[in-house]
C-alpha cells in the first residue's frame, strides 16, 4: 500500500467515523426534544437550526407541522405524516415502531424560530414559490448575515417575482442602514410597494429625525403615493365585504321573498327551514366521510328536498287552514319554529355540529399585499346569484311560475280557468322552503350549525324583503346588496353594534317614507 493511499484511507476512515459521530450527536440532540419544558425545547430547536446537519430542515419542518414523535418503546425521535410510514428523524430511514407515539408539541415561539431558520435554508430551494416565501419570511429579520444571503441569492436569481422580492428586502435594509445615496435608491424602490414592511419602513424613515431632510421628504412623498393605492384597495375590499354580506342576506331572504312576498304568509319558521338545510349538509358529510366536498355539492339538492318536504307538510298541515288570518299564521308558524328547534335538539343534541369546509373553499385569492378575497365568500356570492337567477327563471318562464303568479294575483280567476290553487299553494310554499334549505347549505360554511342558527337570520330576512318590496324578487336582490354594503361601510367607522342599529334606523325611516319598499308592486295585484 503506498503511503498516499494509506493517508487517503485514514482520512476517509476518520471522515466516516466523524460522520458517524455527528449522526450520533444529532440523534442525541433530538432526544432533547423529549421534555415538557418549553424553554429546554426552544434551546434544542435553536441548536438544531444552527447545526447545519442535512436532516435539520426535515426535522424542523416536521416539528412545526406536528409530525415529530417520540417512540415510547425505543425513545427514538421519529417522523410520521398522518398515517404514513414511520421514519427515523435523525437519519430519514424507515423504522419499525412497536410502541405508541407521543407527539412533540411545538409552541408559537418555537414555530416562529423554525419559520426563520427554514427561510434561510429554503432561500436556495428549487421551486420559485418556496424561494419567494423564504425571501418574504426574512423581511422581519434583516441583519448583516441574512442580507449577505439575500445578495448572494440576487446574483443567481432568474425568477422575476423572486428577484423583485429580493430587491424589496435589500431596499428595506438599505433604507435602515445604508448611505444617503443608497437610502434614496431604496426609497425609490419601496415607493408604491404595497407590502406592509415597505410601508412601515417608509413611515419610520419619514419620522426619523436623525435622517437628512431631503431623505425624509422623499420617504414621506413615496409613502403618500403608496397610501393612495392602499385606500383605493381598502374601498374595493369594503365593497367586496358588503357584497358578500349582501349575498348571505339574499340567500337567507330569497325563500322568504316567495312565501311572504308572493304568497303573503308570515312564516316565522323560515329560519328553521334554513337550519334544516344546514343539518342536511352535516348528515351527508357524516354519511360520506372522506368526501367532504362531494357531500357539500350533493347537499344542495338534498337540502332543497328535505326543507321543501317540511315546507309542504307545514303548508298542508297548518298554514292552509289559516289563509287570510295573518296573526294566527304568525303565531302558528312561531310555534312550528320552536318545535323544529327542539326536534333538532333532541335528535342531534343541543351542541353545535361541525360542518367541514372542503379544501377548495378555504383560503383566499391574494391579489396584492393589501387586497385578498376569501374563496368561500367569492363562491357564496356566485352561488347566491345563481340561485336567484334560477328562481327568477322558474317564476317567469315555467308553467309553475305562471300559475304561482296567477294564484297570487287573483285566486278566484285562476281557479276559474282551471288552476288547482291548493296544489299551487303547496308547491309555492315548498319552493320557498326548499330555497331556504339551500341557503342553509351555504350558511353552514360560514357560521355555526346549531339549533339556534335559524333565529339569527329570520329578522334580517324579513328586513330585506320588506325593504326591497314584498312580492318583487328584484327588490330582494337590490335590498340585500344595499343593506350589505351599507352595513360594511358603516362598520369600520362605528363598530358592528352601532352599524347594525344605524341600518335598522335607516330602514325604519325608509319604510315611513315608502311603506311598500324599494320596488312596490303596481297595478291591481298591489290592492289584492
Amino acid at each position, binding site marked *: 500500500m503506498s503511503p498516499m493511499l494509506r493517508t487517503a484511507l485514514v482520512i476517509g476512515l476518520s471522515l466516516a467515523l466523524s460522520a458517524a459521530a455527528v449522526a450520533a450527536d444529532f440523534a442525541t440532540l433530538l432526544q432533547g426534544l423529549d421534555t415538557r419544558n418549553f424553554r429546554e425545547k426552544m434551546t434544542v430547536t435553536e441548536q438544531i437550526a444552527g447545526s447545519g446537519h442535512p436532516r435539520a430542515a426535515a426535522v424542523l419542518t416536521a416539528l412545526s407541522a406536528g409530525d415529530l414523535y417520540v417512540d415510547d418503546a425505543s425513545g427514538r425521535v421519529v417522523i410520521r405524516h398522518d398515517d404514513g410510514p414511520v421514519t427515523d428523524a435523525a437519519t430519514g430511514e424507515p423504522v419499525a415502531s412497536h410502541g405508541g407515539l407521543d407527539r412533540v408539541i411545538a*409552541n408559537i415561539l418555537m414555530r416562529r424560530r423554525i419559520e426563520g431558520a427554514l427561510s434561510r435554508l429554503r432561500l436556495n430551494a428549487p421551486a420559485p414559490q418556496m424561494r419567494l416565501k423564504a425571501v418574504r419570511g426574512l423581511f422581519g429579520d434583516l441583519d448583516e448575515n441574512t442580507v449577505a444571503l439575500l445578495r448572494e441569492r440576487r446574483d443567481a436569481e432568474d425568477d422575476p417575482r423572486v428577484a423583485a422580492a429580493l430587491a424589496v428586502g435589500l431596499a428595506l435594509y438599505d433604507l435602515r442602514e445604508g448611505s444617503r445615496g443608497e437610502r434614496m435608491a431604496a426609497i425609490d424602490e419601496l415607493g408604491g410597494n404595497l407590502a406592509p414592511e415597505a410601508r412601515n419602513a417608509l413611515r419610520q424613515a419619514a419620522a426619523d429625525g436623525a435622517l437628512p431632510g431631503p431623505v425624509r421628504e422623499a420617504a414621506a412623498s413615496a409613502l403618500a403615493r403608496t397610501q393612495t393605492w392602499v385606500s383605493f384597495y381598502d374601498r374595493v375590499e369594503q365593497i367586496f365585504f358588503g357584497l358578500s354580506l349582501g349575498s348571505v342576506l339574499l340567500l337567507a331572504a330569497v325563500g322568504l321573498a316567495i312565501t311572504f312576498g308572493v304568497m303573503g304568509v308570515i312564516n316565522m319558521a323560515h329560519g328553521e327551514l334554513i337550519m334544516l338545510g344546514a343539518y342536511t349538509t352535516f348528515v351527508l358529510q357524516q354519511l360520506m366521510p372522506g368526501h367532504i366536498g362531494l357531500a357539500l355539492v350533493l347537499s344542495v339538492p338534498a337540502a332543497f328536498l328535505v326543507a321543501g318536504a317540511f315546507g309542504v307538510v307545514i303548508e298542508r298541515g297548518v298554514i292552509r287552514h289559516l289563509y287570510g288570518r295573518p296573526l294566527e299564521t304568525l303565531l302558528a308558524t312561531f310555534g312550528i319554529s320552536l318545535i323544529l328547534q327542539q326536534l333538532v335538539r333532541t335528535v342531534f343534541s343541543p351542541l353545535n355540529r361541525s360542518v367541514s369546509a372542503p379544501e377548495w373553499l378555504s383560503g383566499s385569492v391574494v391579489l396584492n399585499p393589501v387586497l385578498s378575497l376569501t374563496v368561500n365568500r367569492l363562491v357564496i356570492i356566485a352561488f347566491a346569484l345563481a340561485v336567484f337567477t334560477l328562481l327568477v327563471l322558474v317564476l317567469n318562464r315555467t308553467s309553475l311560475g305562471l300559475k304561482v303568479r296567477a294564484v297570487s294575483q287573483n285566486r278566484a280567476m285562476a281557479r276559474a280557468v282551471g288552476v288547482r290553487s291548493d296544489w299551487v299553494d303547496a308547491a309555492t310554499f315548498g319552493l320557498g322552503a326548499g330555497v331556504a334549505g339551500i341557503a342553509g347549505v351555504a350558511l353552514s360554511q360560514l357560521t355555526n350549525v346549531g339549533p339556534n342558527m335559524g333565529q339569527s337570520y329570520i329578522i334580517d330576512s324579513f328586513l330585506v324583503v320588506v325593504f326591497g318590496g314584498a312580492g318583487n324578487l328584484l327588490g330582494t336582490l337590490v335590498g340585500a346588496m344595499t343593506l350589505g354594503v351599507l352595513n360594511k361601510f358603516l362598520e369600520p367607522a362605528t363598530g358592528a353594534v352601532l352599524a347594525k342599529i344605524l341600518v335598522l334606523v335607516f330602514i325604519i325611516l325608509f319604510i315611513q317614507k315608502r311603506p311598500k319598499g324599494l320596488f312596490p308592486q303596481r297595478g291591481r295585484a298591489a290592492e289584492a
Partner: protein
Amino acid sequence: MRTIRKRLAGVVAGLALAGSVGGAHAAEEPIKVGVLHSLSGTMAISESTLKDTMLMLIEEQNAKGGVLGRKLEPVVVDPASDWPLFAEKARQLITQEGVDVIFGAWTSVSRKSVLPVVEELKVPLFYPVQYEGEESSKYVFYTGAAPNQQAIPAVNYLRNMLGIERFVLEGTDYVYPRTTNKILKRYLMDRGVAEEDILVNYTPFGFSDWQSEVARIKEFGSQGKPTAVVSTINGDANVPFYKELANQGVSAADIPVIAFSVGEQELSGIDTAPLVGHMSAWNYFQSIDTPANEAFIERWHEYIGDDSRVTNDPMEAHYIGFNMWVKAVEKAGTADPEAVVDAMIGVTAPNLTGGVAAMMPNHHITKPVFIGEIQDNGQFAAVWQTPGMVAGDAWSDFLPESSKIISDWREPLACGNYDVTTGECSGQEY
C-alpha cells in the same frame, strides 16, 4: 320532581328507592341540591354539560354514603337562557323545593339576576364560570376565575414571553368583556403600552360576519410591532371568527389570539387544524396529565356514555365547589345554609390539576393559571403555568375606583365592599 328529564329517571328512581329503604329513619331526609342551568335556549350548549356534571358528582357522593349520613337529592330546573327566569327558578328552588344550596348560572347577567334572590332567602350559590369580578356577595361562592386569575396572567404571558407590544381587545358586547377590557386597558397603559397600541372593539352576541373585523385586526397588526388579539368573544361567535382568521390567512405565528371563553367544549364544534397555536387562558385543561384528572375524565365518559365528550374549566370549578360544599357541611355538622356559608371560608379541596384549592375570605378560591395552545385534535397543550396558586381578587387592583375596596366575609369585618380609605362598609352587599 316532575320537571326532571328522562335522563335523570334512573338517578331519581335510585334515589327514591334509597329513600324508601331509609324510610325507617324518618329524620334522615335527603339534602336537596338545586341545579340551576339552562337546558334550552342559546346557553344550553354550555350549561347542559354542567347540569350533567352536577348529577354525576351527586351520584358519586351518594355512592359514598351521602353527606352526614344523608343522601343528596338533585333538583334540576331549566331557566331556559332567559335571565329573569333565573331569578324565578332560584326562588322556586328555595321556597318550594326547599334546597339547601344551588349550583348554577353561567352568564354574568344570569348571576346578577339570581343574586338578590339568594341574598334575600339566604341560600348559597356556587357560580362556576370565569367572570369580570367587581362583586362579592355573602351568599355567592365564585369558583371560576376572577380577572387576576385569567386575564392578567394571560397578557403578562403575551408581553413577557411572546414580546407582544400591540393589543387588540376584541369582545362581545356585554358586561364581562367590557369590564375585563377596562381592567386590561388600564393595566397595559400603566405598564407603558401607548394608547394607540390598544384597539378595543365590540361585536353583538352571535355575530357571524367577521370580514371587516379581521381585516381591521390584520391592518392593525401590520404596523411593524408584534401584535396579539385578546379575545373575550363569547360562545357561538367564536367559530366564524376563527374561520375568518384562517381564511384571511392570519396564523398564530403572525397574530396570535388568546381567548378567555374558548375551551374544549367550544372547540368540539370546529375543525381546529387552522387554529393550531392560538391560545386560551384557563385554570384547567382536559389535557393536563394528573392522576386526579385522568380518573375524573374516565368517570365522566362512563357517566355520559360517550368517550368523545370533553371536560372543561367550568366543570372543574363545579367539581371543586361541590367538594368544598360537602366539606363545609361536614365541618358545620349540618346542611343548614347559614351554618354552611359561615363554615365555607378556609375549606380546601383538591383540584384536578394536582393542587389544592382554598376558599378565601372574599368567597373566591385559589387556582393555578395555565396558558394552552390549541392542537389539531381540539385539545390544548399547556405551554405555561403560574409557579403557584393565585388567589381570586374580587375587586380589581387595576381600576382606580375599586383598588381601594376589599372584601372579607369573616367576622368582625364581614363586608363584601369595604372601602379602606374611608373605613366604611358600603350598604350595597355586592
